[in-house]
């Protein structure tokens, strides 16, 4: 079973059309919320070390739009955008998410639900990504695959370099 205090992100597929991401943070949830919804702060972590974040726009109100983009090393510009649907500060944020790198992007939008639960100064985060179709869900996961491949290539290069 999950070890308490583990700070590893876990990704599971609860159904054919869903992705569930969970992670625990050693911080109160108002700070996690702040880091998640403040552009200057999002710019510091969302890149996941895969390049530079070029766009970070957050209009945090129901019906407001967001857009994130980055220049991913060896992959080029990748962009995501969506609209906020439900906002319960520090607890719950529902928004749409369009991955701009796939054909028919708008039609394949996902619905993302962020929930934050605080317990003794720690915050459990869950992000549920729901797609209309299994194909849409699978394409979403594979958007991460490109990054993973890139990582593997970088690592390979490093290892190869050290052998010289």
């Amino acid at each position, binding site marked *: 079973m999950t070890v308490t205090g583990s700070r590893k992100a876990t990704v599971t597929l609860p159904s054919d059309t869903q992705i569930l991401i969970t992670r625990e943070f050693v911080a109160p949830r108002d700070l996690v919320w702040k880091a998640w919804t403040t552009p200057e702060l999002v710019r510091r972590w969302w890149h996941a070390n895969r390049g530079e974040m070029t766009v970070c726009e957050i209009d945090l109100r129901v019906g407001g739009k967001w857009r994130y983009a980055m220049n991913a090393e060896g992959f080029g510009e990748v962009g995501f955008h969506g609209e906020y649907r439900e906002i319960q500060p520090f607890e719950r944020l529902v928004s749409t998410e369009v991955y701009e790198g796939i054909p028919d992007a708008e039609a394949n939008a996902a619905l993302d639900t962020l929930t934050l639960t605080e317990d003794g100064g720690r915050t459990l985060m869950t992000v549920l990504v729901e797609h209309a179709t299994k194909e849409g869900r699978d394409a979403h*996961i594979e958007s991460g695959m490109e990054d993973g491949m890139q990582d593997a290539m970088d690592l390979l290069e490093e290892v190869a370099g050290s052998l010289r």
Partner: protein
Amino acid sequence: MARAATTTDAFNAVAEPRRRQIVDVLARGERPVNDLVAQLGVAQPQVSKHLRVLREVGVVEVRGDGRRRLYRLNGQALKPIHDWVRAYEQTWSERFDELDVVLDELKEKEEGHDGDR
């Protein structure tokens, strides 16, 4: 061969919600079919049918124990699914590691501003 599609690989086999439930139960240990019937609240013929599909793709294995047949999970067969998701998980892990750094800074700032938090 209309049902071949559901049995070709682990991806298809665990696409069915009931079969995922069976996988979850077996993840906690080896079980006879009666236990699965009781835990899932589904009739035995149904459970047996799902077990057959899971066995065909190697996700579930069976062994005889006296008169009972015990079913257990073969994690290796689920590895392709794990690998597929892992790259995506890796991106989020690194993202969250960076978020930890931001949070530590925010915590320090808060403690600086109101020490009685």
